[in-house]
């Protein structure tokens, strides 16, 4: 069920890497390369095989692999977020939880309805569902990979100890998922944070750059959210339309085989056009920051309406996933700004406290040290934040460019393929009559 479709542009070529943020250069890539070489899906969980290649002295070996689960990724992400030192960086957004529920449900329903359809139909639908499952699976692998690669590419984060442990420690990290109590705590924390965020955002920033970034990010984030949702809906309708083509194809085929007149040839030819004998979904690279992906052997041109399914799958990849990823990234950027504003507020409060202390001449030293700390923290954050935000923009522009170009190219390719098939079919049909 694999196929390659214009794999060229999907590959992270050297030039694309050049478009990335300036912190990343080729050398550091050689120093630490992370990817997910394998993944296994079991009942409830997915086990990722994280493979590292590194020339750094910190690691015992140059190349090694460990098995990790989704919770461990989340643990790593959270450890970054909670680490004060990283307050000034955009923390790469955590990969979403692998969600096979919908797919599993469908497979189950299919199993239950097995008696009511013909063997052909059953195998076909089963194949379809399996392909869907595979597609979701590939996507989740890719997203986890993106996360790791971003961390590995970040000059500061890549040095994080937790990260190294994550990569190297070949036992289970014993990171249990959060139990109910902890989830509740998280929930409250989030509420407090957003309330705080509102307060903090009221503070006008001295620095124009940050002020501009803040307004921009706020608006951008909301619009990306909207666009992402709509794009999702669009790709889903596209997919249902493509599925309908599939069913039409099989009905036409049935008509063609049963009909006694010479129209049966006609029907059969048209059903070829519509039919999907196998589901093809394009290989997944949802990572807009681009990573090497599993290459698949290419295949002979498929029937036209298989192309419809491909179109919807490509749209899903290039557009919807892109938007979804940037939704998360812009959230992360917003978080950075929030942290900075928070520290600014703290700094200003510390200043006020210092002034008060000086006025009262009490605990001056304490106030001074705390003010110093706040000042340092704030400045540190500001500095790195500025760079991060600039990088974010560069990354974003590059990613959009890449994906939009690829989207357009793929759409063109599919439309042309479709056109040719339709024209061929018409030629045959017209020739017959």
């Amino acid at each position, binding site marked *: 069920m694999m196929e390659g479709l214009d794999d060229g542009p999907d590959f992270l070529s050297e030039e694309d890497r050049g478009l990335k943020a300036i912190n990343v250069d080729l050398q550091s890539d050689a120093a630490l390369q992370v990817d997910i070489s394998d993944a296994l899906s079991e009942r409830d969980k997915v086990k990722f095989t994280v493979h590292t290649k590194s020339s750094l002295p910190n690691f015992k070996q140059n190349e090694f692999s460990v098995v990790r689960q989704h919770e461990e990724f989340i643990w790593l992400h959270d450890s970054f977020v909670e680490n004060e030192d990283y307050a000034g960086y955009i923390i790469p957004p955590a990969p979403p939880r692998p969600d096979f529920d919908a797919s599993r449900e469908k497979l189950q329903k299919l199993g239950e309805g097995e008696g009511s359809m013909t063997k052909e139909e059953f195998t076909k639908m089963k194949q379809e569902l399996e392909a869907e499952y595979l597609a979701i699976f590939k996507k989740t692998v890719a997203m986890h990979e993106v996360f790791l690669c971003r961390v590995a590419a970040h000059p500061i984060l890549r040095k994080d100890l937790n990260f190294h442990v994550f990569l190297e420690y070949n036992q289970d990290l014993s990171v249990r998922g959060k139990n109910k109590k902890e989830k509740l705590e998280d929930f409250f924390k989030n509420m407090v944070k957003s309330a705080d965020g509102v307060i903090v955002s009221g503070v006008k920033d001295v620095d124009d750059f940050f002020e501009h970034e803040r307004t921009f990010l706020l608006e*951008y984030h909301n619009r990306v959210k909207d666009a992402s949702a*709509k*794009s999702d*809906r*669009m790709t889903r309708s596209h997919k*249902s339309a493509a599925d309908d083509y599939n069913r039409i194809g099989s009905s036409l085929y049935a008509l063609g085989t049963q009909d006694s007149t*010479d129209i049966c040839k006609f029907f059969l030819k048209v059903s070829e056009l519509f039919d999907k004998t196998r589901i093809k979904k394009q290989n997944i690279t949802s990572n807009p920051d681009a990573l090497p992906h599993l290459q698949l052997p290419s295949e002979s041109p498929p029937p036209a309406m298989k192309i419809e399914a491909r179109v919807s799958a490509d749209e899903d990849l290039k557009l919807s996933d892109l938007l979804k990823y940037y939704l998360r990234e812009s959230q992360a950027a917003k978080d950075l700004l929030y942290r900075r504003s928070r520290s600014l507020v703290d700094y200003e409060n510390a200043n006020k406290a210092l002034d008060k202390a000086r006025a009262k001449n009490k605990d001056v030293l304490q106030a001074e040290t705390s003010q110093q700390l706040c000042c340092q923290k704030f400045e540190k954050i500001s500095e790195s934040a500025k760079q991060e935000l600039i990088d974010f923009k560069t990354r974003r522009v590059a990613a959009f460019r890449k994906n939009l170009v690829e989207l357009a190219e793929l759409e063109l390719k599919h439309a042309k393929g479709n056109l040719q098939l339709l024209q061929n079919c018409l030629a045959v049909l017209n020739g017959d*009559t």
Partner: protein
Amino acid sequence: MAAEREPPPLGDGRPTDFEEQEDGEDLFTSTVSTLESSPSSPEPTSLLTEDVSTNSNGPKPAEVVLDDDREDLFAEATEEVSLDSPEREPILSSEPSPAVTPVTPTTLIAPRIESKSMSAPVIFDRSREEIEEEANGDVFDIEIGVSDPEKVGDGMNAYMAYRVTTKTSLSMFSKSEFSVKRRFSDFLGLHSKLASKYLHVGYIVPPAPEKSIVGMTKVKVGKEDSSSTEFVEKRRAALERYLQRTVKHPTLLQDPDLRQFLESSELPRAVNTQALSGAGILRMVNKAADAVNKMTIKMNESDAWFEEKQQQFENLDQQLRKLHASVEALVCHRKELSANTAAFAKSAAMLGNSEDHTALSRALSQLAEVEEKIDQLHQEQAFADFYMFSELLSDYIRLIAAVKGVFDHRMKCWQKWEDAQITLLKKRETEAKMMLANKPDKIQQAKNEIREEIEEWEAKVQQGERDFEQISKTIRKEVGRFEKERVKDFKTVIIKYLESLVQTQQQLIKYWEAFLPEAKAIA
């Protein structure tokens, strides 16, 4: 009442006549319904069935009918019903046989505008056809258009009037181009007249478009929204297809009712098409009776051809229904896709606005425009999906129902014949018993009676046999014709549909090609 008529000289018998006379009494002897036998039509030319004393000046409520559900239950029996409206009498009673012109209904192939091929799978009367063609001297050439839907009247009494335009070179029409205004119930009236005359002798009469309360009510109420305009358009197209199919049938084309429908500027209102009228209710009861009847008739099929064909049509029906369901789903999803694409386009435009990198912003706006155009494309494609593909399928599903109805009529015909034979047998037994009983005085009178009855039934048996053979023959021809039509229809429509798909793809290519340089230009 059962005055038999002479078959016209040309030969194979005018099945229509005989059926009309006899069916009034005999048709439903084996069925439950007693309504038919109840005294009804006083006319000598009473036509098949089930009818009505009450309706002619019945109340004329608004055209809205409330029985769509019930009609759907018995959908396949729709065509079997006919109405006996007083308006029809002047046309019919004046001629020896209602649906006639000298041309007998044997032309299997209607010579079309394009080709005059005479190849057909089943032809019994080749020679006669040739004679008829020469006699006619016409190329089959008639074009019908239904256009200009116009709302007439107000409120619940409002209706849509359609303009029916005919262009023809046929000699039977007085002019070569003419048009009239008709309303939906007129079409239904035409169909029921044709059905009553031809269905029971084995002709496949194309079914009329279905009634729809919801659609019509919206139109009447005056809601000027897209769904009611869509409804009107859908109906207009359906009426056009209906008429075109009807005139393609060589026998139906000769029918004076059809001619009157096409030509005369004033048409008596066909009130019997209203479901709430007495006729309507009668219809429903009869449909129920028919459904029961069908289950009880066990026919010894001597002709394998019929069995085969029936099975084929059964399968075809199933397949078409499935296909139709899928195509309808496609139409629905495509419309959804179009709406979602439009929403996405707007969203992308907003995103482009808020993006502060100018080149990317421009590219995003371009993307939004492309998606908007694509949305339009999808909408148009959805229309094509629907009007070409989906409607064709639903037309054929209804046509196949008509075909099945014709087969059912044949069964009934056989049943009649069987019953006549059984009665004859009984009468003969009675006679034989009488002969043995040996009571001189009473016997003579009874014997005479019995003798008479036997003769009567013998004639009926013969008639039944003739009818059965006739209907079988007609059906064979009709089915052959139907198959040809079907093949042609499907091919034409599917090719047209594929061409529309080709167009869509070409447009898509244009749009994306325009977008690509913009995307590449993002620095």
